[in-house]
């Protein structure tokens, strides 16, 4: 554990810095703060900034979005970011016409739009099954989505070829041993 302490300290620090970078743009409340002190923020109008991930689930006049304000909102692991903890974010309800402003959603191939939403935080929204939500009245695009480049490292291809050859050789050895035994 002692050996890992400096690494953990760097990770925590980088998390705090990246968190602050996302949050400071809008004086936003972080998702961690909202979950940890839900009662305090219940019913308060807040501004929340982060990456829209997954998809927009349109349901008539309203649409569900999920906005993550974790370090991966700046750089995802498929883009080369170091692992720095779980994802964290909030479920957002927005009027459907606002949701259509979103141009791209975060996934393996995309770093999604960074948006800023302003709305009322509900610790347990009675109109939506007791879910913790932000009922947004405004949505602003801060930074558009970008595609994520993927390259296969040469080292992995070498390993693949080596293990494929070993598999073929071991299979032949297994079959020979078996046929020899049967004979």
């Amino acid at each position, binding site marked *: 554990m002692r050996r890992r302490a400096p690494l953990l300290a760097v990770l925590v620090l980088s998390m705090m810095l990246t968190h602050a970078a996302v949050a400071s743009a809008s004086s936003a409340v972080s998702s961690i703060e909202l*979950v940890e002190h839900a009662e305090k923020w219940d019913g308060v109008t807040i501004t929340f900034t982060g990456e829209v991930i997954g998809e927009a*689930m349109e349901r008539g006049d309203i649409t569900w979005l999920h906005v993550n304000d974790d370090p991966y909102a700046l750089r995802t692991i*498929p883009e080369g970011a170091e692992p720095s903890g*779980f994802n964290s974010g909030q479920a957002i309800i927005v009027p459907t016409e606002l949701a259509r402003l979103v141009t791209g959603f975060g996934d393996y191939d995309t770093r999604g739009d960074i948006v800023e939403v302003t709305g009322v935080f509900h610790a347990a929204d009675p109109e939506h099954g007791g879910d913790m939500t932000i009922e947004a009245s405004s949505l602003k695009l801060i930074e558009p989505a970008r595609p994520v480049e993927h390259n296969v490292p040469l080292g992995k291809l070498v390993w693949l070829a080596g293990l494929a050859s070993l598999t073929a050789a071991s299979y032949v050895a297994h079959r020979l041993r078996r046929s020899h035994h049967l004979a």
Partner: protein
Amino acid sequence: MARALILRPTAEDHRIIATYTGRVVVGVGLLMLFPLATAIAFAEWETAVDFGIGMFACMSFGFLLQAIFHTRNGLRRSHAFMIVSASWIAATLLGAIPLALAGHYSSFLDCVFDVMSGYTTTGLYLLQDLDHVANGLNMWRFVMTFAGGQGIIVMALTFLFKGTPGTFQLSVGEGKEERLLPNVINTARIIWMVSFVWMLVGTIALALIGLSLGQQPVRAALHGLWVFMGSFSTGGFAPQSYNTFWYHSPVFEAACIIIFFAGSLNFALHWAVWTKDRREILRSIETRSFAVTLTVLIAAASFGLAKANVYPEAVTLFRKVFYQLISAHTTTGFGTIYSRSFVTQWGPAAMFAIIIAMVIGGSSASTAGGIKGLRVGIITKSFIQDIRRMVSPDSAVVKIKYHHIRDTILTDEIVRGAFTITVAFLTMHAIVTFVGVLSGYPLVEAMFDGVSAASNTGLSCGVVAPGMPWGMELVLTIAMWLGRMEFLSVFALAGWAWSVVRGR
């Protein structure tokens, strides 16, 4: 006093164990074809290479074991538990290779934790940035949990073994002691057939619901398949970091409940219902026990939450409590609240209700973990029997029956067996809780996540997270394995090691 003679295993014993372990490992390699095909379909080339490496690592290891330790001798009872243990260790270490290559983990131990969590259908995870994970990698998480739910040995029995003596013991070693048909391989095939029918219906239902909720067709289909696999295996992995909170839908939640409740039922019960004996579901001691404990625990959790006034409306309160409680009781681990909300909103009373539900768990010979409803029912009946004996005349013979597929008279031997496993589980829960407290976590939180791991549930209140102390992580990994194997195979491994060292 004479000491019992411990026989040292012979070279032939080791050859048999290695050969059969090799076969199972080849089977695990073949399982990687699913994530590999998914990665290719979505042009995720780096992920495809990762799974190619993982698959060839499994297959070369498996074929080498079979080539080096080749034997024509069949396995015997004494080998079965060791083969199960060795296979699980090899499958876990080799199954972690593609995860380690993906870059979403801080250490190889984290990868091993997730693979063990997948195979044991626990559902706790340490994967980071799940919301940007490749479809191929997500597919592997669900294939692991689905195959683990059926049993990786049962899988090998079905598709790779050809009627070998002692195969039933392999099945028992993996916690599947029900024999639906005289032939164990036919039994394994029936388990797969029942599961595949459920998979077809469940996936289509969830995908259609997803579409109606606003998901795009491809995502709805993938989520439908994955959430089905996570539900039916009572696994608890979900495709997004928000778990089933992602969908915000009572209909989706209801579909999940039906699927994971079905997954938590004894396969013998499935077979009885399948073969038209539908009354069995109402007569079984397991379903009755489950109904009683679930009702009591929902009432307890609701009372705790009502006092805290987290959900002012009764319908909302019931929806939240019912979902989390039945998820815990079936040891699924799906949630519709944030992990930390258990601590920051629900509080200790409701958390204790969830902990008790996780401790009890689902049905025996199912995909569920925990002590199991059958044992809780047997212990309860044994108390009733003792009370009846106390109030009956001395000359009276008090006999009590329970119904589990057939009527069985409760004997002291059955009660002792149920008590032994129950005490073993409770001891393990105490140990993991103690380790959590020693690692610096508050008692209730340490107990919540510790019991969740040991009962193969997967709910978390935030203790299991990247950066947790490695000693605790190792203990929880072993606890997941012990819980899934119900101790026998793991203890057999220790016994084998002892006999190698001290045997004559």
